[in-house]
């Protein structure tokens, strides 16, 4: 056994450079971690849209198209109506999963954030690194999903490609909020239960994903209006096939989602700093 070679951290570390690049180092580490299950990530990203489009888009779609006749749903075939909503839903869900689980792992399960905070990294850099690595992963999911939608004829790629941008925008906004929420959660079991039962399911079911929310009773429509997925879906339908939106509604959709982005990031910064220095 040989002794360690040693020049000392004062010589080998460029402190100023390191302090500036903390977010980048966290992103690099997260992406390297994701590479360990890249196969299951890719398989999931491909199979998920395939099953949804085959069962809902084609199966349920055929039935609905027959009933709706030439008027269609919102003036288009059901699968075209459905596609932007599914794209937004998968973007939001993937982003949410990518910020929530690493954050719970970091603070509760393996306490890896405390190991990271023993290096020059700050709480804010760890939060932002987690956030941006989730964004990169979600870009991958959205692009694959969009490609499958094109394969099924659910979107016209030349026209509908901006729906990838609106989906990612919504995911990035709501993901910031979930980053703050996960960093706040002291009781991980309770948090995951609440997230699964009171957030993901209603988000998916009452946001106009499968039918226009105007067809729901008014009290349930409120749920849809509050849901970030509905705002994302409206924007996605607008850019994909020309779903009518007034200028003010477009501003409201973007603005409403932006509130999640700003409050979520501020909440996350606060909680990361607090929990790492408690």
């Amino acid at each position: 056994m040989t002794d360690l070679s040693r020049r000392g951290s004062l010589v080998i570390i460029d402190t100023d450079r390191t302090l500036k690049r903390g977010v980048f180092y966290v992103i690099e580490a997260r992406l390297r971690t994701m590479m360990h299950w890249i196969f299951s990530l890719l398989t999931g990203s491909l199979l998920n849209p395939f099953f949804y489009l085959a069962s809902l888009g084609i199966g349920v779609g055929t039935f609905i198209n027959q009933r709706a006749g030439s008027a269609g749903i919102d003036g288009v075939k059901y699968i075209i109506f459905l596609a932007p909503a599914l794209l937004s839903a998968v973007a939001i869900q993937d982003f949410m999963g990518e910020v929530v689980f690493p954050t719970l792992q970091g603070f509760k399960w393996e306490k890896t954030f405390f190991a990271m905070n023993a290096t020059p990294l700050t709480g804010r850099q760890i939060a932002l690194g987690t956030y941006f690595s989730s964004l990169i992963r979600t870009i991958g999911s959205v692009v694959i999903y969009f490609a499958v939608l094109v394969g099924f004829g659910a979107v016209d790629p030349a026209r509908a490609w901006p729906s990838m941008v609106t989906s990612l925008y919504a995911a990035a906004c709501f993901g910031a909020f979930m980053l703050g929420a996960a960093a706040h959660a002291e009781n991980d079991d309770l948090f995951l239960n609440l997230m699964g039962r009171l957030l993901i399911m209603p988000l998916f079911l009452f946001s106009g994903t499968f039918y226009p929310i105007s067809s729901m009773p008014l009290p349930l429509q409120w749920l849809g209006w509050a849901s970030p997925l509905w705002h994302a879906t409206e924007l996605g339908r607008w850019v994909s096939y020309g779903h009518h939106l007034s200028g003010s509604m477009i501003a409201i959709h973007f603005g409403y989602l932006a509130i999640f982005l700003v409050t979520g990031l501020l909440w996350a910064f606060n909680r990361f700093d607090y929990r790492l220095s408690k």
Partner: protein
Amino acid sequence: MQNEELIVAKGLTKKYGDFTAVNEIDFAVRKGESFGFLGPNGAGKSTTMRIIAATLTRTSGQISILGKDPADRGPEIRAHLGVVPQQDNLDQALTVTDNLYIYGRYFGLPRKFVKSKIDELLEFAQLTDKRNAKVESLSGGMKRRLTIARALISEPEILMLDEPTTGLDPQARHILWDRLFRLKEQGVTLLITTHYMDEAEQLCDRLMVMDKGSIMAEDSPADLIKKFSTKEVLEVRFGSDRNSQVSDQLKTMCERIEVLPDRILMYADDAELLLESIHRASLHPLTSLVRRSSLEDVFLRLTGRSLIE
């Protein structure tokens, strides 16, 4: 400069509401020395370590680490520290190599440097054959060695170890001690908290004995024993009922005694002679043991309590 003080604390205090975890302590750690915090659980050792590690803000007092104040220059200070926490916080799903790699990158070290350093650290920690194993498959001792290797990837100026051998078997402890000796020989400043007196004696040049957030004494292990205990100790057992009955008589025969629930400790420079005098007085203990004084005796003297209760 071997006498350079890397850490200087004056009146350092940490409070949580009404509870004072660290109470106005003063100390200084010199470059290249191995400095230990000795005390029972709840003494304030880990809190002090976290303040030094620039991950916990103090309530009052002053502290300077590498000439900087952790309150406003925490990340700069942390760039030159290696931290081994009480509980391993490795990424369980990653391999041994990946844990070292990503940690090295957090310090901004170039990829090429990190890769070559990993080979060296794996050999140092005797984990070369486990380089591609996932952390979750390692034994407790291996995880501990990996955590230490991880803390060394940035060649820190100060290596901080919080209870480094808790939960390890004797063989794993000795391997770790050997590695820490080697680091000390290379001039790495070591900061160690422990409640094991043998570990403190083995590893530390200087010790700060803490209890209830305060410093009880500070010196080298040998000088602490010299100051606060006798050369030898005689441990006698008369049975739990008789221990207290004979204690008054025993008190007159030596410098000091401590009556513990299961045994009596008698302090004298020549414990063999003391044992003979006990026998001559027709006090026949059920068992007797002559040993040299240890830091446990120092702690008992200073606090009136045993280190491990």
